[in-house]
């Protein structure tokens, strides 16, 4: 892991993210690169969803709580037929349905409007609770940022989820180290464990690690919610973008773009 040369997984999706964001001049490239492998894996081999019937009552729910990674979600939704290539083309314009944060009232397959951090995860807890009340088998997955874990509502909801024994709920924390740049959260896994969650640290870019963890989340449910703390690299896939430098909300210039394309096309 940590390699960002040719052979990086989902380089095609990363290229589409770059194209969308650079064309519109809006978006969070490193945050999207950090999570695109996780989201692709969820839609590719974990979630029980149907792009032809997005309100199917037996579907699994996925909520991107760190809404600023929306570009990663959009390219995956396009890959699996929820939205079109034209939708991606129109990202960030008044012609389309996509923008810097996902809008559930517009985008097929998006379950929650997120963007203000600390909303999607507790809403996912509510969905999981609602499904439990209705004695339904659907599962709920929610992707949270490690920086987002500084929000109080995350821990309010974490306490509720464990008290309600929401074994139909799996949280994935995108542990890309953003929190460490702000007000560090020490022993993230220990904190979730202390809140009564089943925890597992995984590699958020490794298909095998994702498969071993997320694909088995349902069978490993043991009367408690699960959190997968996914080690990731912000900007993963392009050395220029990796880490916590100036790239969080920056758009590459033409020279930088050439370098990015070169790395992702190798």
């Amino acid at each position, binding site marked *: 892991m940590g390699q960002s040369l040719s052979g990086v997984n989902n380089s095609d999706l990363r290229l589409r993210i770059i194209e969308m964001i650079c064309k519109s001049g809006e978006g969070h490239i490193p945050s999207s690169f950090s999570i695109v492998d996780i989201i692709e894996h969820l839609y590719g081999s974990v979630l029980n969803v149907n792009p032809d019937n997005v309100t199917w009552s037996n579907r699994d729910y996925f909520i991107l709580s760190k809404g600023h990674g929306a570009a990663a979600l959009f390219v995956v939704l396009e890959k699996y037929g929820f939205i079109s290539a034209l939708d991606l083309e129109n990202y960030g314009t008044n012609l389309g349905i996509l923008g810097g944060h996902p*809008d*559930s*009232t517009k985008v097929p397959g998006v*379950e*929650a*409007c997120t*963007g*203000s951090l*600390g*909303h999607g995860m*507790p*809403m*996912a*807890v*509510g*969905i*999981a*609770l*609602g*499904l439990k*009340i*209705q004695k339904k088998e659907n599962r709920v997955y929610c992707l949270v940022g490690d920086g987002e874990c500084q929000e*109080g*509502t995350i821990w*309010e*909801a974490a*306490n*509720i989820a464990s008290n*309600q024994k929401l074994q139909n709920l799996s949280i994935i924390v995108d542990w890309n180290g953003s929190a460490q740049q702000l007000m560090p959260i020490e022993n993230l896994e220990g904190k979730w464990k202390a809140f009564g969650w089943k925890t597992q640290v995984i590699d958020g870019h490794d298909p095998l690690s994702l498969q071993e963890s997320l694909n088995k989340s349902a069978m490993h449910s043991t009367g408690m919610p699960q959190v997968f703390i996914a080690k990731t690299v912000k900007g993963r896939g392009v050395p220029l973008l990796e880490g916590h430098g100036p790239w969080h909300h920056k758009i590459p210039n033409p020279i930088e773009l050439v370098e990015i394309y070169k790395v992702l096309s190798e």
Partner: protein
Amino acid sequence: MSSLRNAFADLMVETGAQDEKIVVVVGDISHGLLKDFRENHPDRYFNIGICEPATVNIAAGLSRVGLIPIVHTIAPFLIERSFEQIKLDFGYQDLSGNFISVGSSFDYSKLGCSHHSYADVSLMAHLPNSQIFLPGSALEFEIFFRESYKSKHINYFRLTENPHGIEIPQEDIKVGKAITVREGIDLTVLTTGSALRNCHEAVEILEHEGISAEIIYLPTFKPFDSDAVRKSIMKTKRFITVEELSAQDGVYNAVLRSIIGLGGVTGKQMAIFDFLRTYGSYHDLQNAAGLSTDHIVQAATDLLQGKVEGPSY
């Protein structure tokens, strides 16, 4: 006079038995009162505890899967503390649900400003899909709740601990409709919720002084019955608004929007302009806010004598 909070508990038992989609979520308030609902439907009752923002997030999740959340706690914590959750998770996402508060305005008069809520109604009014009710009696609440709880709106029911005690014919109580409690020709007194009591007392005093005041009671704040308001003020040309709400965007402002274009009208706003830092009874705080019966009588008299002052912003 039955309390609105008891009516709430009884309504939950009744509608909860009929409608399996109802889920009651409370923030450690009315836990005892809701005992019957809790025991009848333990899988649909949750005392979430002391974490109001997440409680609202979670209620949005319940709504997302087709359930009907009833979220209940003290007004400032339910609405003002949690407003971003209500705005984004219900408003922006176009989800429906029911928010039922206690501790209307300064009902918790001995607890201080931390437990007061003056801006809750104006905040909720900003949501395009909201309906707002300030029932002043148990009957009003029951009628509004039954008609609205499963609508596709965000319904806010602001329950008062101080019912107005004025008898209003059941057939006059309708969602979105103003009620002409008393007809008059010299001025219109417009009010909502528990403040009707003082308005009613004041109008009786004014009557003894030969002043004929009309009372327009607005237990539904949104949708606002602009037609009834405009019609009354068109007749009287003078009005007073009396509201246990922030002066910034309440009944007075809605009345002004309703009478745009009417000439020769004068009016007076009686509302809450500052934190009420005193302690005491509900009536003590009404007095401190300038919303007592005597204040209303004085304001009406001043208005009729042409002593019109702008609101003291």
